[in-house]
């Protein structure tokens, strides 16, 4: 029993070690660039924890990252490598936006229905790669990467062409018409203030936070409290054994793939419905790829992904801090954040190998 506890301890500590190691890299690079580490640390502090507003911004930034992470994680659990979260949220966000623009519904129904349509959109975009995988055995990594490019091109065309909302405006930014006010994701900031957390109105803590919390809970519940969740995890651990045990592997994988796509559809909600109020292909990209690293660091567990998405949000904010308050050049900041992520992933992996080796030794 004590052994098991030791392992879990190692596992929890692993990302921490990675984080510390990445901090060392940060310090080294900052020194090379010729800035004082103290100033850099101060810059990071100012942009991340110095004020309630900054802490709340980390939480806000973590929302789409969490959703992307959990979408990837759910796929991973079933042995599905869904690299296509990127395309799925671009398309899902678009479908959701369409529901937000064209459906005349009262607010209490409109908000849930745009969430629903965004999920449908994301799942639809995962459908073809999922079928290709299950029916023809074509590897999903290849198909989903291709589908990412297709999704970008498609929404680019849709936003510029048939669904353009530009007509007669001075702006050149390709965008759809504005979503109806009934579908807007309102901010929860007043609620947080009532609870004693003094969040200023400028931070985006909106309905998407609730969506993320519900999504996280549902994923946890399905994976660890339902029979089908056991099947999913079994398939992810070993498809052959699962097949032998009578689990319908293909069906589970198809379902997990679509669920992963549906979760991915939620990623763009915050930007479309809370921040911008219309859809544009210029919404933040790269979240799907961040999601892969987030899922890895979070060990594909909903709780782990909460922490790893917060860590990513912290890193992003730290990068802005360096940009605003120090003379570290921007390109170097990209390098630093990239390296930090890399190091965290690598340490994580090293520690799990170490544990595996320990376990093997024990088994012998």
């Amino acid at each position: 029993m004590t052994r098991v506890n030791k392992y879990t301890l190692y596992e929890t500590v692993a990302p921490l070690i990675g984080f510390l190691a990445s901090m060392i890299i940060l310090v080294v690079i900052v020194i090379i660039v010729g800035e004082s580490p103290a100033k850099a640390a101060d810059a990071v502090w100012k942009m991340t924890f110095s004020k309630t507003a900054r802490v709340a911004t980390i939480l806000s930034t973590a929302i789409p990252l969490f959703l992307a992470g959990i979408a990837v994680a759910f796929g991973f659990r079933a042995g599905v490598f869904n690299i296509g979260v990127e395309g799925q949220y671009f398309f899902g966000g678009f479908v959701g936006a369409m529901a937000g623009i064209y459906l005349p519904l009262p607010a209490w129904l409109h908000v849930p229905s745009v969430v629903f349509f965004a999920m449908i959109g994301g799942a639809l975009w995962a459908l073809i790669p999922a079928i290709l995988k299950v029916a023809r055995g074509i590897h999903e990594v290849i198909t989903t990467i291709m589908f990412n490019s297709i999704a970008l091109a498609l929404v680019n065309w849709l936003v510029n062409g048939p669904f353009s909302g530009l007509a007669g405006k001075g702006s050149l930014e390709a965008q759809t018409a504005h979503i109806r006010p009934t579908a807007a994701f309102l901010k929860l900031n007043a609620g947080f203030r009532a609870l004693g957390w003094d969040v200023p109105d400028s931070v985006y803590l909106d309905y998407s936070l609730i969506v993320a919390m519900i999504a996280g809970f549902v994923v946890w519940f399905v994976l660890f409290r339902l029979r089908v969740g056991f099947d999913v995890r079994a398939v992810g651990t070993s498809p052959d054994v699962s097949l032998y045990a009578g689990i319908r592997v293909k069906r589970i994988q198809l379902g997990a793939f679509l669920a992963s796509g549906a979760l991915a559809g939620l990623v763009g909600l915050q930007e479309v419905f809370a921040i911008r109020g219309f859809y544009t292909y210029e919404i933040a990209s790269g979240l799907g790829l961040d999601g892969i690293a987030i899922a890895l660091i979070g060990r594909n567990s909903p709780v782990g992904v909460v922490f790893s998405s917060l860590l990513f949000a912290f890193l992003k904010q730290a990068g802005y801090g360096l940009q605003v308050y120090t003379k570290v050049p921007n390109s170097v900041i990209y390098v630093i954040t990239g390296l930090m992520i890399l190091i965290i992933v690598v340490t994580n992996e090293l520690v799990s190998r170490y544990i595996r080796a320990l376990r093997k030794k024990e088994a012998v």
Partner: protein
Amino acid sequence: MKKLLILALLIPVIAFMGCQKKEAAKAPAAKFKIGIVFDVGGKGDKSFNDSAYNGLVSLAKDFKGYIKDDPANVNFGTDVELKYLEPKQGGQDREQLLRVLSEEGYNLIFGVGFMFTDSIAKVAKDFPKTHYALIDGYVPDLKDDSNLTCLAFAEQEGSFLVGALSGLMVADKPKAKVGFIGGMDLPLIHKFQAGFIAGAAYTDKNLRAKGMILGQYIGKDGSAFNDPKTAASIATTMYKNGSEIVYHAAGGSGTGLFETAKAAGKLAIGVDSDQGLGYMTNDKDPAAKEIGKFILTSMLKRVDQAVYLTSKDLIGGATLKGGYRTFSLADNGVGYALNDFNKDKLGAYTAKLDELKAKIVSGEIKVPADDAGAADFVKGLK
């Protein structure tokens, strides 16, 4: 394992302690703080951002200022603090950067490019004491007392000059045509076309006949600004049909025109920034210089002037007016590119172009800004 852990914990602590230098005695606080958030692409884009940066450099020179945290160490004094930031992507980070600059007490904050339209309008509402300027974007319903100014450019006037230059260059060839390639078919792009037509017809009467100034748009949607292939095929047709010079207002599609110009051995005119200079100073790609030779000049939107003049008003003590401000030939807000590489080609014409510029500034020539206006203008010349 344990040792590793302790080591990992210790190193950053030591590093931080070792480097806790005492901060230099604080410089006297700047009288004015001016911030800029660049468009995606950042410094070094050889376009709007670099132009805006140049505006900062001239401000530093003329008003004893410095650019904070800049690797180039632009420092002429401490009266004016200048700072630029660069967004990554997404709607949230532009807003965040604008907000941070506002919280840090910057007096005037620029957003470079129309992508800032939404975020700058939101932030401006939250910081009524800070003034904001949106370059090349449009926010509706602003008034004189708003704390947001939309800075626009009289593109038709700059286009008139490059059109006039084209006309002058082909005036001795009665059969030579000129061409215009537009990106997305928008009223904004028609402004460029109208100015170009008017300028070309003004200086070369052969071009006043029907069908001598060609014009075509790449498409009806935003992808038209990033479609070099279509631009190249349009340009090929134009050159084959006798065009000597083709001007584009098609953003990223312009590269298609330039490559075609080189292949055809004819001339092209760039837009927004000094594109010819961009090609000629590209040391990475030897082919770029070959192409650059065929770029006659470019119609410039002087973002640096917009930044400079707006900031100058602030430093001069004026209360900045909200609303809309257009930069034209009169304040050098638009113009054409003259650099080390094309000055020999243009040398013979600059005097005439200066004369035309003076006429436009004085109002003697009224440059049309739409198709109908351009048609009337050409008719009026006969």
